[in-house]
């Protein structure tokens, strides 16, 4: 048993990548960004981070059920975004 066998390359890369993304997200704290720019950075880093977990760590695409799994996740994410933004529209932004 050598270490190479226990630490597969793409998982190590995934881990390093997620640390880099975390550091990138931290820029919104240390730099003085506008709200829009900060939110853009956060959205981009968070969703890439989620994708890294999903594909590299969770093996979402490794079986014949790939289609069902991805449909399920995409559907969930779409409905989640609709719920979040729709709620904000009704509860916060809609009162202007």
């Amino acid at each position, binding site marked *: 048993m050598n270490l190479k066998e226990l630490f*597969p390359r793409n998982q190590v890369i995934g881990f390093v990548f997620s640390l880099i993304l*975390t550091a990138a997200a*931290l820029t919104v704290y240390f730099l003085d960004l506008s709200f829009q720019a900060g939110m853009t950075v956060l959205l981009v880093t*968070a969703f890439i981070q989620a994708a890294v977990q999903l594909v590299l760590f969770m093996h979402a695409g490794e079986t014949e059920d790939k289609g069902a799994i991805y449909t399920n996740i995409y559907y969930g994410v779409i*409905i989640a975004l609709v719920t979040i933004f729709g709620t904000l529209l009704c509860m*916060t932004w809609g009162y202007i």
Partner: protein
Amino acid sequence: MKIDHSLPLEYSTEENRLKILGFWIFLGAEIMLFATLFASYFVLADRTGSGPAGSEIFELTPVLIETILLLTSSFTIGLGIHAMRIGNKKAMMTFFAVTLLLGLAFLGFEIFEFFHYVHVGAGLQTSAFTAMLLTTLGTHGAHVTFGFFWGLAILLQVKKRGLTPETTNKSFIFSLYWHFLDVVWIFIFSFVYLKGMM
């Protein structure tokens, strides 16, 4: 029970394949569960009443430590599943144990964080914002706590029964759960803490 030896053990029976797909669908439901919490959080984030706002109570250091702990635990459980697939029971159990310890450390910091909030006057009953903050964090924390005991039960079974179709299946499903909690934490880290401190 028909066992298909061309597949990894966790996929080797029909029952196992059903369970893995079923768990993915459950994770779809979990996405909506946390989405609802986030939707409520965003609506209530500025409704602080007479209590403190997020920027007044959040502290970067403990949050960053929690993030690193959880990210690392997500990495180690991935390694655990890899070790399981190459049939290395000892390495797999080590990685699982490390994962659970990291989870426990995360929980320790989170409990410390909660004490801090209550101490600075941001309790459950203070305002809509604090209630929502503690509920969102608490739901994630409760998932991690549940995961800790679940993982422990699986670790015991692997130790006792070895790498069988059942135990590998449970371990794989547990790893999905644990990765998912990490994904949720990334969103909490970004859109609760960093957005609040921005």
